[in-house]
């Protein structure tokens, strides 16, 4: 079963095979947990559960080889709902996640991975970075990104646009500080 494609696993899950579900979980749950945690630290584990329950219920509707994209599509929508819920009924959350401790190894990492891009991204305001992440990395539509971030659709569009422009300028002229308009 280890060598089977996700598509085959999901067909077996649809047929009620729990072993297939366990294999699929092993393949995809770690990435989903880490990815969701970067976006919703408190709720990541719950969201992974919800995503897999939805996948389990709807296993029969998947047709394809690799379920990574499909699972993320489900997870992103569960994430949108949970963020909206959090805005409507705010839960007193624990303290903000601590400033992440950066080891010497991470400093090496910074050197290794295009320090220019790193600095450029680092100089973007969190609002611009979130807009870019939601639309470009997470593959959400403008409407979904607006729901996720709790801002209007036009705000998402202008932020994404501004973020792209700033990034382009800073990558072209890494040493010149561009006025953020």
């Amino acid at each position, binding site marked *: 079963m280890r060598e089977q494609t996700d598509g085959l696993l999901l067909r077996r899950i649809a047929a*009620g095979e729990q072993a297939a*579900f*366990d294999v699929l*979980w*092993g*393949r995809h*749950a*770690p*990435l989903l*947990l*880490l*990815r969701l*945690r*970067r976006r919703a630290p408190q709720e990541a*584990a*719950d969201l*992974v*559960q*919800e995503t*897999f*329950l*939805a*996948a*389990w*219920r*709807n296993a*029969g*509707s998947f*047709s*394809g080889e*690799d379920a*990574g*994209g499909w699972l993320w*599509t*489900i997870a992103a*929508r*569960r994430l*949108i*709902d*949970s963020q*909206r819920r959090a805005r409507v009924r705010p839960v007193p959350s624990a303290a903000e996640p601590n400033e*992440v401790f*950066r080891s010497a*190894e*991470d400093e*090496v*990492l*910074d050197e*290794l*991975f*295009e320090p220019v891009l*790193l600095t450029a*991204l*680092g100089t973007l305001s969190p609002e611009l*970075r979130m807009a870019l*992440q939601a639309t470009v*990395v997470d593959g959400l*539509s403008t409407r*979904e990104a607006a*729901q996720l971030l709790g801002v209007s659709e036009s705000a998402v569009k202008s932020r994404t646009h501004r973020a792209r422009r700033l990034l382009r300028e800073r990558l072209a002229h890494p040493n010149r500080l561009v006025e953020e308009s």
Partner: protein
Amino acid sequence: MSWHADPLALRAYAAGTAPDSVAWSIETHLSGCAVCRAALSHHLAAEDRDLLSAARARLVLSGPAVSAGLLGTVGRGGWVGRLSRRPWPAVRSGVLGPWWAWAGFVVVSSVLLGLASLVPTWRAAVEARADGLVLLSPVLPVALVAVVYAVADRGPVSDTTPRGGLELVLTRTAAVLALTVPLVALIRSFHGVPAAAWLLPGLCLCVGSLALGSWVGVERAAIAVTTGWVGVCVVALAPLRVRVSMEAVLVQAPWQRLWWILLVASMLVVLWRRDHFDIRGSLQSRHRRMSL
């Protein structure tokens, strides 16, 4: 794919210390790369491993999750299933199901209702039996809700659309009402029966199905309510000694008061259990059942 993520980057990502520029390329790449996903699991921290295995155990122990609707299981292999099956990008659309189901419904129901009022013998029979169409009209929207759920939920729609819980349920019901109320009102007016007669009972049965649906699923609830109402009508029309006038049930004042009470009660139930239309609600109730 020949490019694979750097082990150092994967380790930083697993530890949550990777900066955005690194994390973004990892996330984009790993969505489609099984090799790197497997590598990432090796870097997962021990406490995250425990967290995940506990989560998996909870999910699996609370029983098989498969809850394909009643009509869904019947139609899955059939022509309905074949026609409406789409690859997964269809997740984005399909809140109300494929257009052809709606077009088909409107045509078929208009033809049927039109025929019913035109065929003289049938018309006579219908009028003699206290106008069966009036009796069935309150349950028409509910029946249609069942159809929408059966047809539209072929893909992972209600589980995976944002606003997929109560909002989706209400959107669908509102769409059904917007379609059926004018249609039935038009047809009723040919018969000279005020459309208002069935509006309140119709709304009541509709909201009642939603309330019931928060326990058993909207599709099942709608089927149950439809069957129940048709059963009541059949019994009431049967040539028994004690006959309840169903027209009175629909229109007369004491009954109207009962309909109002039922309507408000159902609305309160829907509000109270609003989280249970969502996948999160069903997870929570599964966990509660387990811990009992």
